[in-house]
């Protein structure tokens, strides 16, 4: 790679190194001892303007964030970073990227593969396969309603977050005694860097609206569910996530009430995303999508296993016009549980908040993605799967990319496995 900071008019991009918070000073000293000239953002604190190249230094160090951008990433950087990661001085490295305003959502071009053997060292398999881990979007400025069994707002991973809770279920406590709601909120809106374990949350800067519409027994009725949806619209939520349902029979018609309610939500700029249901016993028996997901105005989400096949329990589009719209990870899903715990759950319940979280990322990317446009954006991004639309709809949920990766030199990431060529 050339040593100049610009190749024609295209800025030459570097490598972003994030230090372990307690070891940032050590990390900088390692770079300096390796012959890199380091300029700190502190050096320019009182300057009228910060030069893009930090005065020609090899490394731009942002101490407030514990991040360094290495401009001259020749062969000498590789062994330094490799050792620093082993010593836990560095937590991550990635190529620097160029940001631009989005006029349309774009999906990752990285190939979709089975994650049967994927070890969840940094992210869950669900976030990996949906390319959430590659997205720079966070859900900031977006309100996500999760209508479920409640939410443990005191969970250690949600400190400092914008959280609004409301109880709609009758004869129930305000707590999430089931743990289901906390798990779903975790997937949709959990943190970028959890206290323990891999990243499991998608829209980590979205505002959380947790409506408890299912009681302490895990059940709710139309009264509580509809009241929760009305509240979510009152609050201005762009996404309403409902990992709940009632089984439908073959030949059933969609519930006309939810047809109407879903339409009002779309007209109001909100997408309702609901679990397709778990009544199947594949391969022998595929049960129809349940209510309210079978309403054409509510997005029905099927569950995939790690092989990216429909989960054995996942309902399908058996009844005419009551289709699965999209599929997302719903087996062996790790997320938060009440009491600062974590755990794994299965179900279209778990697939649904994956879609809701990604919806928040799309909604963040451009205000035009609201209501029906957001619905279309989700389906447009979906990746094809070798399974019938009856089972997976438009295919695999995929997260949008707001960035254009302009670095041509990907050797780093191939060598260390931090990304795909």
């Amino acid at each position, binding site marked *: 790679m050339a040593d100049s900071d610009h190749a024609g008019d295209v800025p030459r991009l570097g490598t972003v190194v994030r230090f372990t918070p307690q070891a940032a000073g050590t990390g900088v000293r390692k770079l300096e001892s390796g012959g890199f000239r380091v300029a700190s953002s502190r050096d320019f604190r009182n300057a009228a303007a910060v030069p893009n190249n930090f005065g020609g230094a090899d490394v731009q160090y942002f101490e407030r964030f514990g991040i360094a951008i290495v401009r001259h990433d020749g062969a000498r950087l590789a062994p330094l970073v490799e050792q620093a990661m082993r010593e836990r001085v560095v937590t991550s490295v990635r190529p620097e990227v160029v940001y631009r305003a989005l006029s349309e959502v774009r999906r990752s071009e990285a190939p979709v593969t089975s994650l049967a053997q994927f070890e969840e060292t940094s992210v869950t398999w669900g976030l990996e396969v949906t390319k959430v881990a590659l997205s720079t979007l966070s859900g900031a400025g977006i309100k996500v309603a999760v209508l479920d069994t409640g939410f443990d707002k005191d969970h250690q991973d949600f400190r400092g977050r914008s959280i609004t809770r409301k109880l709609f279920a009758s004869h129930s406590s305000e707590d999430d005694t089931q743990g289901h709601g906390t798990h779903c909120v975790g997937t949709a809106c959990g943190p970028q860097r959890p206290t323990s374990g891999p990243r499991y949350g998608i829209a980590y800067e979205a505002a959380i609206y947790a409506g408890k519409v299912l009681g302490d027994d895990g059940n709710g009725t*139309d009264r*509580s569910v509809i009241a929760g949806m009305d509240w979510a619209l009152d609050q201005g939520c762009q996404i309403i996530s409902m990992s709940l349902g009632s089984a439908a029979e073959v030949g059933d018609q969609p519930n006309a009430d939810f047809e109407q309610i879903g339409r009002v939500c779309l007209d109001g700029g909100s997408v309702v995303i609901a679990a397709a249901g778990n009544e199947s016993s594949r391969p022998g028996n595929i049960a129809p999508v349940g209510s309210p997901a079978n309403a054409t105005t509510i997005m029905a989400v099927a569950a995939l296993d790690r092989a990216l096949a429909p989960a054995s329990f996942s309902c399908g589009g058996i009844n005419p016009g009551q289709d699965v719209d999209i599929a997302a990870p719903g087996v062996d899903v790790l997320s938060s549980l009440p009491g600062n715990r974590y755990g794994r759950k299965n179900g279209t319940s778990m697939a649904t908040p994956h879609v809701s979280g990604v919806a928040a990322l799309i909604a963040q990317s451009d205000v035009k993605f609201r209501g029906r446009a957001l619905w279309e954006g989700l389906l447009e991004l979906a990746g094809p799967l070798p399974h019938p639309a009856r089972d997976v709809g438009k295919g695999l949920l995929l997260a949008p990319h707001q960035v254009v990766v302009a670095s041509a030199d990907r050797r780093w990431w191939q060598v260390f496995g931090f990304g795909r060529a």
Partner: protein
Amino acid sequence: MPDDTSDKVDVTIRIETAQAGRLDEIVRALVASGLDRVESHARFMIVNGCVSAGSLDALRKVKGVASVRKDETYRTQTP
């Protein structure tokens, strides 16, 4: 949730969207026909309430009512 009174059922009532201007009047008529624990969602044109099982048909006869159905139970979707 079932009402404390065993012969009562929770219901969801859909109002014809063309009757939006008459919603309050329709709700009053529903109450007069036996509906209680009323919760009205104007933007959805949906009314939730509780009624004795024998009064369901009376609710259906109220002008502007599109449908009346007994509430369903919704559950978490984990197998």
